[in-house]
């Protein structure tokens, strides 16, 4: 591996806040509903985890910080402040360091935006999810569309960079419904949008209902595919092409933190269930922390929140690099892939490009729009054998 490989991705910090005001029925993120959180204790534990991680990532320049969840907008701004202060003291920060916080669009949270900005947050990503109240209720959201828009307005006035998330291919939604909703969203959007197709995850309330034969009015795969295609076209014509499977931005406005994941750069992950990929003197490590908040807190206070620290084989790195980078429209660097020991067979590449799913050049592989829609299948072929 050359230095350029992991430095190409940059270096970021992910902070997981595992609490939410209520559990959404579709959500399988590591999120929990708790009556009481001892913010002081959590802040101290997170800071000590930061220090532990800084010790194994010396000499790195911090490009991005991302507060994700759960609902990090429920954090005490002083916690965010303490973490950012500590991070800046542990690593040199890039001049234009991007600091994103995921926010739920309720009035409570909107009231804290100014304090988050003062702590150093300069980008927010809001979980708007839908633009009508009936659908928000079915998604189990605690906010109305109007409340979300109000929160969004507050955010726009406070932060330069604001993005929001929508979930589509929802119950009862038609292609035409989605096209109209998306156009409204684009009219509101600043320069970044995350558009996720609803995924029914096992182990969630939706997953259970679906397994019992419920959620009948979900669009089928063909309609969902049409919605995906329409999304690409509409966003492109509005100057917000997809730079990743589900993420759209005006050129230059991409989430730099998420780009680190997809370019398979290094990142430290702290907080319950956070993942990290860090390069040390002996190669690349995968790290993972305890998922359950109580356990994580206890272990972190005892000195180490990791549940796993594992060297990654070259083969695993190659697979991960390919899986992550093919999500991006810029695609995969073949030379880097080869250095990780993976060279997909020429016949496979020919087959996939013949099907119009993969763009193959001397130096790169990238999924076409049609290819991104069936990316798992493309990856199965590329990684077969």
């Amino acid at each position, binding site marked *: 591996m050359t230095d350029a490989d992991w430095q190409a991705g940059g270096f970021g910090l992910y902070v997981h806040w595992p609490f939410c005001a209520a559990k959404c029925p579709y959500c399988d993120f590591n999120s929990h509903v708790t009556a009481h959180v001892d913010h002081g204790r959590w802040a101290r534990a997170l800071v000590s985890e930061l220090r532990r991680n800084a010790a194994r990532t010396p000499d790195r320049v911090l490009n991005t910080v991302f507060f994700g969840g759960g609902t990090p907008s429920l954090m005490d701004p002083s916690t965010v402040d303490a973490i950012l202060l500590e991070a800046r003291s542990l690593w040199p920060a890039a001049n234009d360091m991007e600091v994103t916080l995921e926010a739920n669009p309720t009035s409570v949270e909107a009231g804290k935006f100014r304090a988050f900005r003062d702590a150093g947050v300069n980008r927010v990503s809001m979980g708007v999810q839908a633009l009508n109240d009936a659908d928000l209720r079915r998604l189990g959201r605690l906010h109305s569309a109007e409340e979300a828009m109000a929160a969004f307005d507050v955010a726009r006035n406070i932060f330069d960079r604001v993005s929001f998330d929508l979930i589509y291919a929802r119950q009862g939604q038609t292609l035409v419904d989605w096209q109209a909703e998306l156009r409204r969203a684009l009219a509101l959007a600043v320069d970044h949008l995350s558009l996720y197709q609803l*995924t029914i995850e096992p182990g969630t309330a939706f997953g259970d209902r679906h397994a019992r034969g419920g959620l009948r009015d979900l669009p089928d795969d063909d309609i969902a595919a049409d919605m995906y295609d329409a999304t690409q076209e509409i966003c492109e014509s509005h100057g917000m092409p997809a730079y990743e499977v589900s*993420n759209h931005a005006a050129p230059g406005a991409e989430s730099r933190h998420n780009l680190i*994941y997809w370019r398979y750069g290094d990142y430290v992950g702290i907080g319950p269930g956070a*993942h990290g990929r860090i390069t040390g003197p002996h190669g690349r490590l*995968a790290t993972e922390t305890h998922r359950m908040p109580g356990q994580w807190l206890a272990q972190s206070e005892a000195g180490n929140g990791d549940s796993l620290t594992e060297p990654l084989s070259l083969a695993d790195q190659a*697979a991960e690099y390919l899986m*992550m980078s093919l999500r991006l429209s810029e695609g995969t660097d073949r030379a880097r892939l080869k250095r990780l020991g993976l060279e997909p067979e020429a016949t496979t590449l020919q087959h996939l490009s013949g099907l119009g*799913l993969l763009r193959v050049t001397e130096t790169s592989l990238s999924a076409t729009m049609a290819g991104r829609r069936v990316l*798992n299948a493309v990856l199965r072929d590329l*990684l077969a054998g």
Partner: protein
Amino acid sequence: MTELSRIRNFSIVAHIDHGKSTLADRLIQLTGTVAERDMQEQLLDSMDIERERGITIKANTVRIEYPAQDGHTYILNLIDTPGHVDFGYEVSRSMRAVEGSLLVVDASQGVEAQTLANVYQAIEADHEIVPVLNKIDLPAADPDRVREQIEDVIGIEAHDAVEISAKTGLGIPEVLEAIVKRLPPPHGGDPDAPLKAMLVDSKYDAYLGVIVIVRIIDGTLKKGDRIRMMKTGGTYDVDDVGIYRPAMTSVKELGPGEIGYLNASIKQVRDTRVGDTITHEKRPCDKALPGFKPSVPVVFCGLFPVDSSEFEDLRTAIEKLALNDASFSYEMETSAALGFGFRCGFLGLLHLEVVRDRIEREYDIELITTAPSVVYHLHMKDGTMRELHNPADMPDLTHVSHIEEPRIKATIMVPDEYLGDVLKLCQERRGIQLDLTYAGTRAMAVYDLPLNEVVFDFYDRLKSVTKGYASFDYQMEGYREDNLQKMQILVNDEPVDALSMMVHRDRAEQRGRAMCEKLKELIPRHMFKIPIQAAIGGRVIARETLSAMRKDVTAKCYGGDATRKRKLLDKQKAGKKKMRQFGKVDIPQEAFISALKMDS
């Protein structure tokens, strides 16, 4: 040695599930043969598969002692037989070893197809028959009607049929008395004559090797005797003789009229031939018994390991099973699509399922089973005849003069109201009606049918169109020429040999269409569209197109959790291993068998 007049040998026969094994339980229990605490339901059904499916597969022999009302103690040798049509051979050979039969009829169901088949066999074996009406504890039991039915349909006397409940034990003493009073003792039998014994059955025991079940006609058999099998010519030293109570119990000797086992260090079940005559090497009897027709496999299919590296394990498993089951045949097979495997022959579809289950469970090998096929006779232009066990081996048609297929004579008993549907089904399956009679509200239809049309799903269809009220039995009836052709299935323009089948001209289009539709359901979508075609000699007769997969991507980003994605893909890759690749297409293993179980 027991006096002949104090011996009764009989088989218990009935339609499937009419309660043979349960009656055997009660007879064993009431005579105190087995301690109460060792008693369990269907005690004789000792194989796992038998217990799990609640059916008898292997016939079992037990000796019980019964002190009768006349003050004498009788030795009763009973043979519990299987009811399923696939194992009809077990019934017929069991009958040859005994002099009478208890014909069990479920009093709530009445006479069924196997009841009839069993009676005919019993009559052929010159048996005295005692009809037993079982399950009279059931509210739906109607013994008077069933008595009438037995007299009308079967034509045997039934006024003194014994009414019992094998479940509650009601009527069992009467059955025991009827056995003693109404069944004959063994005929003739001279203890001092040269040994003449019938080889009734043989089974493999992991500890003891091959155990042979014998019925002594003349002479006596003792431990230490040197015996000769008259047909196969094998000679052996007898290590042990004994009886089943039902546990194996050694005895000093077996004399005329007795049924028991012998153990003579025989290696393979295949070394013994059911129906053979066993005699002493030194002092042989002069005439062998007539013997039985060997059972022949009628349904063939390919068994391939899902994981091709398990081929050798599969070979071992099949060889071991064959040690214990002489009724199935096997030979190595190679398929372009599936690699190395075995072409195996079975007595019927249930037999196939049983063997496949055992390989999968006892040997832990996952299998791909190809479409079952019957044996065709190819009459070549040069006047020779070839057997075709596998449609994939069909030679160039220019050398074939004509093709014959096996036919069966099927007997179907069904309540009136479903008769129309049954006749329609038989018609669809190219059946020719031979007879149609009524007895009360039940009809009996006799059809000449091609075996090929029956092996896949005829029984399932029959059950579904008659809501389970029909019963079915068949016998092989020889071969007949018909307009038969090989149909190939092409997936993405490539022929898949393991899906080839023989079809009748008139049914080809329909079958082809059904196959293509079914495969379209079973093959997962790929990144490209896949034509699925049925063709006869290069001419496409049916076609479906499986459209390309349109969506398969993980929408969300779980922070930097790359592990999760990698694991997901690993899981998908493992799923893919369970499929077979044909060109660029993955076909799941179910496709090979379920594609043929279709409504057509």
